[in-house]
C-alpha cells in the first residue's frame, strides 16, 4: 500500500549530477525509455535515476511493512473465523510485498539491512497515512478498502514505468491488492449495511480516514516541484492530482452507494471541467506528519525498532553460519 508522498521531489541542485554522465550513454538510455524498453539492473543508468528509484522503491517497501501494523493489530480482534483468517492473509500479503520490493531495491545496490536501518533511524520515509491511528475494527476496514484502492491507482500507473524489476514486482503486488480491495469492500459493506452500531462505527471511521485519504496521493501538482525529468524517465508515471481525481471518480459513487456520507460539504464533480472539486486538504498537516509529527509516527517506528533489536540475535546467528568454514575432513 503506497501513495506518493515526498518521493518525487528532487532537490533543485540534484539535476546538476547529469553533467557527470556520458552524453551518448545518456541519450541512448533516454531513447530506450522513449521506445518503451525496460531498464534492467546491469544496464547503464544515470546516477540520479538509480538514486531516485532506490528512494522510491525503498519508501514503497517501508510503507508495506509499516502499513501492516495498523491492520495487523486487528488480527487478534477480528470478529469471527472468516474475518480473522482473511485479515491475517491480507496483512501477510503486505509483508510479502515488502519482501518483493526490498529485493527490487537491492538490485540497485542498497541492502535490505541498510534500508531497514534508515527506516528506523527516520532517515527514509513511508506513506504518511500509516501515521494515523486505527481505533476501531471499522478503521481497519476503511484502510483495507480505500487505502488499498488508492494504492492500486498509484501502483497501476507505476507498473508502466521504466525499471524492469520494480514494474514486475508491482504487477504481482497489484494482482494481490485487487483481492484486498474485494476483501475490504466486503468488510465495509457488511458494516455500512449492518446493525445501527456497525453503521455508526463505519461512518465514524470514514470521517476519520477521509482527510488522510485525500492527502494519500501527495501534495497538489501546483505545489509539487517540477518533475519533468522523472516523467521523461518514466520514474513518475502520473501526477498526484491525476491519481486523486481517478480515485474520486472510481470510489465516491461506491462509497455513497452503500449509504455512507463523505465528510466534505464541498465535494462535487464539476460537470463542465469533468474534475472533482473538494475542500483543500490540509497540506501543512501532511508536511508535519511526513516530518515525524503525526499521531502515530513514534509508535510505528518504535514497534519496528523493537522488532529489529529483538531479532538481531537471529540474524547474527544466521550470518555466523554463513561465514563458518566448511568442515574439513581430517587426512588421517
Amino acid at each position: 500500500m503506497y501513495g506518493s508522498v515526498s518521493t518525487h521531489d528532487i532537490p533543485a541542485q540534484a539535476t546538476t549530477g547529469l553533467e557527470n554522465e556520458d552524453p551518448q550513454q545518456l541519450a541512448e538510455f533516454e531513447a530506450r525509455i522513449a521506445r518503451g524498453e525496460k531498464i534492467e539492473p546491469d544496464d547503464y543508468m544515470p546516477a540520479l535515476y538509480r538514486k531516485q528509484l532506490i528512494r522510491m522503491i525503498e519508501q514503497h517497501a517501508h510503507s508495506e511493512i509499516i502499513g501492516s501494523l495498523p491492520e495487523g493489530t486487528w488480527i487478534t480482534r477480528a470478529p469471527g473465523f472468516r474475518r480473522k483468517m482473511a485479515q491475517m492473509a491480507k496483512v501477510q500479503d503486505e509483508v510479502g510485498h515488502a519482501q518483493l520490493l526490498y529485493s527490487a531495491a537491492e538490485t540497485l545496490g542498497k541492502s535490505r539491512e541498510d534500508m531497514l536501518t534508515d527506516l528506523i533511524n527516520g532517515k527514509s520515509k513511508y506513506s504518511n497515512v500509516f501515521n494515523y491511528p486505527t481505533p476501531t475494527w471499522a478503521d481497519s476496514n476503511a484502510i483495507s478498502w480505500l487505502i488499498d484502492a488508492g494504492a492500486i491507482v498509484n501502483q497501476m500507473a507505476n507498473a508502466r514505468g521504466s525499471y524492469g524489476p520494480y514494474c514486475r514486482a508491482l504487477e504481482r503486488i497489484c494482482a494481490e491488492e485487487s483481492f484486498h480491495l474485494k476483501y475490504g469492500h466486503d468488510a465495509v459493506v457488511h458494516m455500512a449495511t449492518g446493525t445501527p452500531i456497525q453503521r455508526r462505527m463505519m461512518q465514524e471511521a470514514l470521517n476519520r480516514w477521509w482527510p488522510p485519504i485525500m492527502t494519500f496521493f501527495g501534495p497538489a501538482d501546483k505545489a509539487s516541484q517540477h518533475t519533468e525529468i522523472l516523467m521523461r524517465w518514466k520514474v513518475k508515471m502520473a501526477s498526484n492530482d491525476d491519481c486523486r481525481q481517478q480515485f474520486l471518480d472510481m470510489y465516491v459513487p461506491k462509497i455513497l452507494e452503500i449509504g455512507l456520507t463523505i465528510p466534505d460539504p464541498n465535494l462535487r464533480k464539476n460537470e463542465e471541467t469533468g474534475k472533482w472539486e473538494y475542500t483543500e486538504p490540509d497540506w501543512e498537516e501532511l508536511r508535519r506528519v511526513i516530518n515525524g509529527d503525526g499521531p502515530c509516527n513514534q509508535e510505528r517506528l518504535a514497534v519496528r525498532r523493537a522488532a529489529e533489536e529483538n531479532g538481531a540475535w537471529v540474524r547474527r546467528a544466521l550470518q555466523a553460519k554463513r561465514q563458518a568454514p566448511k568442515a574439513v575432513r581430517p587426512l588421517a
Partner: protein
Amino acid sequence: MTDPKKDLLYRLADDQLILGHRNSEWNGLGPILEEDIAFSSMAQDKLGHALQLYSLLHELGEAEPDTVAFTRNAAQFHCSQLVELPIGDYAFSLMRHFLFDHAELLRFEALAASSYEPLAQVARKLKGELKYHVLHANTWIRQLGTSTEEALEKLQAALDLTLPYALGLFEKTEAEPAIIAEGLFIGEDVLRAQWLENISRVLNQTQLELPDLSAITPVGGGRHGEHTEFLQPLLDEMAEVFRLDPTADW
C-alpha cells in the same frame, strides 16, 4: 464432558485456535520478514484446522464454530497451557512451535486411522499441512541450534522453560479409556513416546540438551479448564469486536 468424541475434538480444536492466535501476533515483529510470513502462514493453517474441528463438533450438536470460539470463557477451554503462554521472544515461540507441532503431526497421523471417520478424513488433510510446520521448525532448530553461543543460550533457556508445558500436551481426561477403546485415537501415552523419539532425534543434531524428563513435572490442568492468567485476556481480546454487537453479521 462425557462424550469421548467431543472431549477429543475440543482439546484438538482449542489447541489449534489458541496457538494460531498466538502465532498471528508475530505480524510485524519477526526477526526477519520471512519469519513474519512463515508464522502467519502457520497461524492461518491452525485457524483453518480449528474451524474444521469445531465444524465437526457442530455436526455433533455443539454451537456454531464462531459461537464456540468467540464466546466461551477460559474455564470452558480445553487447550493445553503451552499454547496460551504469550509469544515471548522468538526463541520461545520457535521452541513452542517445535515441541507442539511435532506432537501435532504425530497426533493427526494417528487420527487419520481413527474409527470416527469424519475426524479421520479431516486428519488426513491436516497432516499434510502439519508436515510443513514440522519441517519449518526442524530447519530453524537445526540452524540456530548449531550457531552462536548467544543463540544456543536463548534456545536452551526456551527449551528448559517450555518442556514442562509441552509435557502437559499429553494430559489425559476421564474420557481417555473410552477414546482408546472405541478406536478414536491411540491415546496420549503412545503419542508421548513417539513424540519424545522424534524431538530427541532433531535435538541430537544440535548443541542443545534435552533435560531429563523423569525429573520434570508436567504442567497440566488445561485439558480440565484450568488455565494460566494469560488465557482469559487473550479470549477477551479475541472477542472484543464480536461482542460489540452479538446480533451483527461482521
